[in-house]
């Protein structure tokens, strides 16, 4: 309101300034008129020159006077537009016919709305950056080339930290033995042996689990040249099914900010397979369905279900 009022006070100065500008314009045009007309006919050449110079000087003086007057007035007027948060568009509030052209109120609403939008977008982008859905930096593809990519911190954990997390989990579950190896650089590979039931090969990227393969306890987990065989699947249908479910679990347990919790949750879930052949389905109460035992374990309750019995 104060802005509006001060603008109102200065209105007189505005009017004077405008008339001063008009005066200046007319005096300037008089100067050019005088130049255009040149020397008028007089009796003598000397008389002509004198009259012309006197006339030209008069005109220049009046221009000078008008200019000074305008400068004085412009100081009076001040700079009302810069005080207003909406700059020049704030002057719209001076429009007396509010009802016909409610431009100013509309403008204010739009301004508030866009302010809020910007604020919320900023918050959202911050949150989304934290909860990145991309598990692997490689997937960024083309866009990664254009902008300098911020490597997710969880992908650059020191191997020592990964070792610590894994050995802690190993100690947590006595019936589960975890053997960690790094055959290909820094990425760890785990060979998890669960009781005398199954063996799981877990391929890690830092603390992210990239791939799991479940095989039988009696099945071979090494290739002929003594490396962990991370590609071929189990010969038994039941373990192929469990492999599928384990992959589902990988996608289910996601918490990019706390990768160690993810690994621990996954291992806890995996541990429930110790009773793979002993637990009947919690829904139908039977052991077998289509020749398979209950291969599904609920993510929350860890109860056993047949693949088709879970809902």
């Amino acid at each position, binding site marked *: 309101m104060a802005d509006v009022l001060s603008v109102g006070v200065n209105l007189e100065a505005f009017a004077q300034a405008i008339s001063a500008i008009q005066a200046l314009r007319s005096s300037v045009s008089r100067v050019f008129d005088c130049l255009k007309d040149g020397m008028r006919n007089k009796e003598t050449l000397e008389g002509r020159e004198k009259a012309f110079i006197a006339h030209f000087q008069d005109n220049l003086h009046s221009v000078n006077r008008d200019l000074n007057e305008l400068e004085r007035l412009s100081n009076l007027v001040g700079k009302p537009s810069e005080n207003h948060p909406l700059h020049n568009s704030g002057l719209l509030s001076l429009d007396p016919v509010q009802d016909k052209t409610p431009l100013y109120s509309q403008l204010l609403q739009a301004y508030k709305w866009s302010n809020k939008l910007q604020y919320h977008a900023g918050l959202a982008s911050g949150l989304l950056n934290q909860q990145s859905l991309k598990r692997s930096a490689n997937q960024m593809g083309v866009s990664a080339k254009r902008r300098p990519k911020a490597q997710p911190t969880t992908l650059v954990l020191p191997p020592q930290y990964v070792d610590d997390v894994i050995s802690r989990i190993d100690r947590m579950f006595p019936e589960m033995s975890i053997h960690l190896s790094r055959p290909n650089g820094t990425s760890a590979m785990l060979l998890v042996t669960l009781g*005398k*039931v199954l063996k799981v090969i877990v391929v890690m990227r830092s603390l992210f689990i990239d791939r799991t393969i479940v095989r039988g306890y009696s099945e071979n987990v090494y290739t002929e040249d003594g490396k962990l065989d991370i590609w071929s699947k189990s010969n*038994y*249908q039941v*373990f192929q099914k469990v492999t599928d479910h384990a992959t589902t679990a990988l996608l289910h347990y996601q918490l990019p900010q706390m990768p160690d919790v993810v690994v621990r949750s996954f291992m806890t879930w995996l541990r429930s397979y110790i009773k793979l052949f002993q637990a009947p389905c919690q829904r139908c109460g039977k052991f*077998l369905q289509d*020749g*398979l035992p209950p291969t599904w374990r609920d993510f929350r309750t860890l109860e056993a279900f047949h693949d088709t019995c879970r809902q």
Partner: protein
Amino acid sequence: MGVTCVSQMPVAEGKSVQQTVELLTRKLEMLGAEKQGTFCVDCETYHTAASTLGSQGQAGKLMYVMHNSEYPLSCFALFENGPWLIADTNFDVLMVKLKGFFQSAKASKIETRGTRYQYCDFLVKVGTVTMGPSARGISVEVEYGPCVVASDCWSLLLEFLQSFLGSHTPGAPAVFGNRHDAVYGPADTMIQYMELFNKIRKQQQVPVAGIR
């Protein structure tokens, strides 16, 4: 190698051994099992030679030398309720050399032959047990491949056995109770076959003698 249960299926009343086997295999095929060739388990009995008995002063123990088509390169030698060993098939030749200590019992060879079926992770072998020329009974072997601890999957095996044997479902084999939590091995299967063959031998002696 998974946990295996070997049992005997009684011959259906008013049917021959062959007919009962057909009935059983048809049931399996209805269940969705796929035929996968044949199998054979044979067993020969040896007893300790009389010459060695006297000096040691112990009763003659029977030894069984068995082969299983599932392990074509191996030969199993078992004492009743005693130690067993798994050797290469050359063991048969060795037994010939050991004639002085172990003598083959005449006409003691007993074997079971039949069809091998696969259903999911189950391996089912239905065989006709023959001794000499005559069919003596029916053997049913069910193996569950993924599991290696017998006590873990017995309930599961039982449910599967019930699905096609019905009221003739056997109880848990004795070898299952022997070692809790131990890994099941091929020898455990052979012990079950040995016990089955012994049972069939004893069963058949009485009625056969009666008929004659």
